[in-house]
């Protein structure tokens, strides 16, 4: 129940998934739910393949928001620890851009909190992705967030 062990950050380096999940483990928890968002390969209208997503963030605000989301989740579920990591910069196809991991006593709570955190992050957090195509052209992804 101690938020001082939470790890919430934007980072420009690759996500270390094993380490992040190790960090969320806790002797008092029996369940860990993890969500990873990865760059999905696609082809654009011009027939170019997506090679990467290039993430930009308003970092100070996004980290503040992510800490607030973690607080909100702790009010709704009995959470042991939370890890929320989001990449900035280039994330190649197949690589993870975001990791949410939550440990709780039981599994329903872990799934609920993890889903809540990724949904809220996608809706609110001040992060944007640009699609980088095989001809080196790039386009800002259509934003689907529902910020006020």
């Amino acid at each position, binding site marked *: 129940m101690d938020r001082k062990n939470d790890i919430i950050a934007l980072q420009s380096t690759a996500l270390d998934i094993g380490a992040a999940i190790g960090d969320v483990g806790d002797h008092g928890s029996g369940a860990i739910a993890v969500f990873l968002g990865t760059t999905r390969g696609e082809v654009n209208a011009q027939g170019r393949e997506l090679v990467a997503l290039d993430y930009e963030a308003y970092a100070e605000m996004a980290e503040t928001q992510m800490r607030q989301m973690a607080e909100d989740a702790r009010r709704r579920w009995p959470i042991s620890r939370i890890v929320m990591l989001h990449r900035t910069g280039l994330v190649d196809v197949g690589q993870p851009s975001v990791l949410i991991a939550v440990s709780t006593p039981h599994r329903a709570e872990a799934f609920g909190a993890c889903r809540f955190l990724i949904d809220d*992050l996608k809706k609110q957090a001040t992060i944007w992705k640009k699609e980088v195509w095989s001809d080196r052209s790039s386009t800002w992804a259509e934003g689907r967030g529902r910020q006020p």
Partner: protein
Amino acid sequence: MKIRLRMFAVLRDRSGISQTEIELADGATVATAMEEVGRRFLGIVELLPRTAAAVNLCYAKPATILRDGDELALIPPVSGG
């Protein structure tokens, strides 16, 4: 009064500005600040109706009154995750 203006993603790309200071009349709101931004950076006028604002790291309504030294950020629809 002076506020710090920050722009991100497509707004930064089209305006060529990541951050700057702008001078506003005392009592200016987020809405009046955005009108001023539209006058200065014509390339982003068409994007402003879908642009949200944050003041000092929190989303803010158009009617929010700005104060000297505030950080106003213009936030295109987010697409993280």
